[in-house]
């Protein structure tokens, strides 16, 4: 007799716990407004990432197509994965002096781990993280990017 009572106790006790759980799911079933869903590909136009979001490394250019990079290669030295390559060239100035200038700033997105050291160490704040996060491409070569735009030059320092 005791065995039967215990069996029934366990059975109904078990059903009760299942119903407790179903109460929670049932609540959200009748309150669909409390369910949060990101409509990701549909809301692409309105989707805004946070300001500090680490998308990919980019070099901002101003309206005169000028950037701030002095080709000092500190970012290249500090990058743990070798995803940055700074190629510089010697340019002769009007007064005859030779000066090092940025030729190409190669950024290999495929090797980047988004640690943010390059941006932290940059003394000129020439590179920043951009907001883009859709990195998928069909060809691996497309992940090797040149950050400085063609024909761009170094921004002259404004005297304060």
């Amino acid at each position, binding site marked *: 007799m005791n065995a039967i009572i215990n069996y029934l106790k366990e059975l109904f*006790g078990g059903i009760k716990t299942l119903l407790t*759980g179903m109460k929670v799911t049932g609540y959200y079933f009748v309150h669909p407004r409390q369910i949060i869903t990101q409509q990701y590909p549909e809301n692409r136009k309105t989707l805004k990432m946070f300001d*500090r979001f*680490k998308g990919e490394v980019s070099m901002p250019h101003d309206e005169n197509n000028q950037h701030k990079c002095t080709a000092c290669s500190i970012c290249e030295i500090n990058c*743990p994965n070798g995803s940055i390559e700074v190629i510089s060239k010697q340019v002769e100035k009007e007064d005859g002096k030779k000066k090092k200038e940025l030729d190409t700033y190669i950024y290999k997105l495929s090797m980047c781990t988004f640690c943010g050291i390059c941006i932290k160490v940059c003394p000129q704040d020439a590179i920043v993280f951009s907001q883009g996060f859709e990195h998928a491409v069909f060809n691996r070569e497309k992940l090797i990017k040149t950050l400085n735009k063609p024909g761009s030059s170094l921004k002259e320092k404004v005297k304060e």
Partner: protein
Amino acid sequence: MENIITNNSIQQEEYIVNMGPQHPSTHGVLRLKISLKGETVENIEPHCGYIHRGIEKMCERLTYQQIIHLTDRLDYLSAHTNNEAVCLLVENALQIEVPERVKYIRTILDELTRLASHQLWWCAFGMDLGALTTYFYGLRDREKILDIFEETTGARLLQSFNVPGGLMNDIHPNFIGRVKEFITYFRKKLPEYDELLTGNVILKERTTDIGLLTLEEAINYGVTGPSGRASGFACDVRKHHPYSAYDKVEFKEILYTKGDSFHRYKARVEEMWESMKILEQLIDNIPEGDYAVKMKPIIKLPEGEYYQRVEAARGEFGVYVLSTGEKYPYRVKFRSPNFSNLSAINKLGAGHKIADLVAIGGSLDLVIPDIDR
């Protein structure tokens, strides 16, 4: 008839089954070689190395600032805590006192990491036992923490927010408000976890008295974190060797004595309540100050051996560095909690049914990249 069944060769012989490397409930590329007798597990032999990346070796050619981003990739669910271990090691070796503000922010982010990690574990544990519903409820709340992380650190999972001497950035102006909002929100939502899963009869039947680990075994195998504390092993580094701002907060070390799968589950759910208590004590009292001390661009540790441990979400995480005075460490060793926790799996699983092994593995909360490094 009975004679035929008992004399059946399948019943008598040991039968070897591979669980993994590609198995959904091992949470990664872990291979368990299981000897079976019928349906009962006789012996479990873990085979590691499927996701070995040689991180310890890589560290020998990286500066101390660069090592940090690799520690993210060990236990990716407690990335911030792992970062902190390396930073604390460097700071202690150079005897740098970081500002109070840094300590507070680090502790808050630590606890948020722990909460996010336990939430994901709760999702996955329910799913291991066949309850898909829990996955969506846990991820709903975890998303809130990840938003906090993304706003302040710029990344959701692998933050790399700690640097030797402080933090990458100051906290975002919205940070305090968002954390407070999250605590009030999650205090309402956490009882739902209990209603959905803790009292559930299926969970109780499948975890109670399954995978027993005694206190002695837990100490012998070095099972730390919530898994060890469920066996009564008082191993909370936050409590016994406080770092950052843990000496300024009051919290309870969750200890159980039984050490079965259910108590490992319970320890983690209770830890979520404790984490929220810690957050509440700290969030209003963040002192003003700098977010980092100025460090030299090239950090050279004095010659010698250094060890620093922190409490990650899964147990004690330790970093050992042998320095020869160069800018690169001579040798780096990570004491990862999951490797030690995995080593006890033969003790836990042997004698149980193979279906229970999934529940045992889930209750240990294994993260495979942390095991292989």
